[in-house]
Every structure is written in C-alpha cells, then in structure tokens.
C-alpha cells in the first residue's frame, strides 16, 4: 500500500483525502505563524501608543520607495507562484517551472533590496539603535524603539523569505515528480509563500506609512 501503487498513503482513504489533509495541515501551521507575528504587532501598537511622535519621527526616516517596491515585488512573486499552480493543474509542467523560477527571482530581488541595499543605507544613516543613533531628543528614545521593531521584524520576515525561497527551489528541483493530479507539495509551498507576502503587506504600513505625513 504505497503512494506509487494507489495514489495515496495507507492512512488516507483517498488521494484527495491525503491532499486535503496536507493543505489543512499547512493552514494550521499558518495559524500558529499568525500567533508568532501577533505579539510583534502588539509590541508596535503598545510602543506607538506610548510615544506617537517618536514613532512618527522613526517612520519618516525609512525609505518609502524601497519599501513600496519591495511590496510590489512580493505581490508579483505571489502572482507568479499562483500561476505556477494554475499551470500544473492544467498539466503544463514547463510553464509551471518557469513561473516558479520567476517567483523565486522576485523573492530574491526582495531580499537583495532589503538586506543589501536598504539595511546598509539605514546603518549609514545611523538608524541602528545604540549610542550612535542619529535622531536627537526628545524623540530619540522612542525612535530607537521604532527601529528595534523595524530591524527585528524585517529580520524575522527575511528568515521566512529565505525558508520560502528554499522551498520553491526544492519544488523546482523535484518538478518532474508532479503532474496535474499529483502536485500537493506545490499547493502547500504556495500557501506558505503567499503567507510570507501577507505578513509583509501588514508590516509595510506599520513601518513605512503610519505617521509619515505627520
């Protein structure tokens, strides 16, 4: 009773049952990820409420152009991946691989912009919290809190993007195993990749937008 013989593992009644269990399992994992990111959002709300003008001052120091471009890159990457799923469901494996490679490259571009361009610029501007922090009192302490949130959340999100890129690469390398009727790993990785996009969609206004016009 192996998957190769009848299309599903022995503990499932059908191949569809197996696929639905995998998809549900990924959604359960994503629910725990929501709980993981939730306290970070709560910390932002709490600290912002305590020092709104300092958080405004911090937000104004961030690079809105790079932040917006990165958001567009991740959204487009999610679209490319979703088209990959669309193509494998239509039995077009080559088109699926091309879409996933595009999704991977866009994710890679996000990482380069974030950690090879934006972070070094932030360090140059003296925005890393510490003795040499660039902003002067009275907003200095609160703005440092803002940048603690900024560096910590973008680093954690970046780690998630790295895992996602690894998973997409794994799917591409195993692409020959997938068919129109057997492609559950592609679906599951796609859910994770879109979730990473979702987290960034929430982080974008928290970091770059709220308080910028103040």
């Amino acid at each position, binding site marked *: 009773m192996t998957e190769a013989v009848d299309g599903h593992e022995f503990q499932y009644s059908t191949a569809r049952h197996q696929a639905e269990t995998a998809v*549900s399992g990924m959604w359960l994992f994503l629910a725990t990820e929501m709980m993981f990111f939730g306290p970070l959002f709560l910390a932002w709300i709490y600290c912002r409420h305590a020092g709104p003008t300092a958080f405004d001052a911090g937000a104004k120091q961030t690079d809105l152009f790079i932040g917006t471009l990165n958001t567009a890159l991740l959204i487009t990457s*999610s679209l490319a*991946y979703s088209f990959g799923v669309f193509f494998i469901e239509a039995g077009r494996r080559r088109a699926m691989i091309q879409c996933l490679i595009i999704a991977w490259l866009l994710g890679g571009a996000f990482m380069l912009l974030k950690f090879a361009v934006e972070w070094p610029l932030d360090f140059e501007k003296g925005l890393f919290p510490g003795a040499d922090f660039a902003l002067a009192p009275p907003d200095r302490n609160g703005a440092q809190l803002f940048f603690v949130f900024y560096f910590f959340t973008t680093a954690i999100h970046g780690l998630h993007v790295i895992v996602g890129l690894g998973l997409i690469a794994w799917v591409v390398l195993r692409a020959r195993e997938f068919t129109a009727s057997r492609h559950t790993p592609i679906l599951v990785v796609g859910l994770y990749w*879109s979730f990473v996009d979702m987290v960034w969609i929430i982080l*974008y*206004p928290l970091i770059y937008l709220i308080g910028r016009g103040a």
Partner: protein
Amino acid sequence: MKLRAKQLFTSYLLLLILLAVQFGVAKLPLGEAARGFVLLPALIMVGIVAIGFMELGKGPRTARFFAVAGVVWLAILLGLGCLDPMTRVLYPTQSTTAD
C-alpha cells in the same frame, strides 16, 4: 481554467491599486486618530491574497476553520493586549513635571 487566470489577474490588479492608494495616502497630514485607517487597505489586501491567491474559499473546510481560528486568536491577542495601554490614564508625576 481561463476563469482562474482572470481571477488571478483581477486579484493582482486590486492589490496594486490598493498599494497605490496606501502610497498616496501615506504623505497626507492625517490626524493621530485617523492614522490607523492607513491599515485598512492592508487588511483588504490580506483578504484578497487569502481568497485570490491562496484559494481559501475552494480549500477543505478544515483549512477554512484553521484560518478563521488564527484570525480569532489574533484578534483576542491584540484586543486584550491593547486594552491596558488604550484605557490607562497616565497622570504626571513630580519627576516628569520637573522635566
């Protein structure tokens, strides 16, 4: 299948429009109370990604249950967590008034 491709492009277009709205609104001189509304397009975008890209509506019932459970617990976490800072009245002490 063509319908699915159209759905993906529509979702993408909506996401880009909402991103442009956020980008445009960011530099408006909004009051402190109104600043939270900048998050509204982001929440709509999350919904579009969940339905358009992740096909939550098409997935198994248990997947929808886990997604809703995640959102409910997140709401409880943020709601209860915010109660104290949002409702506490801070009275100036002698040391703070001296500054």
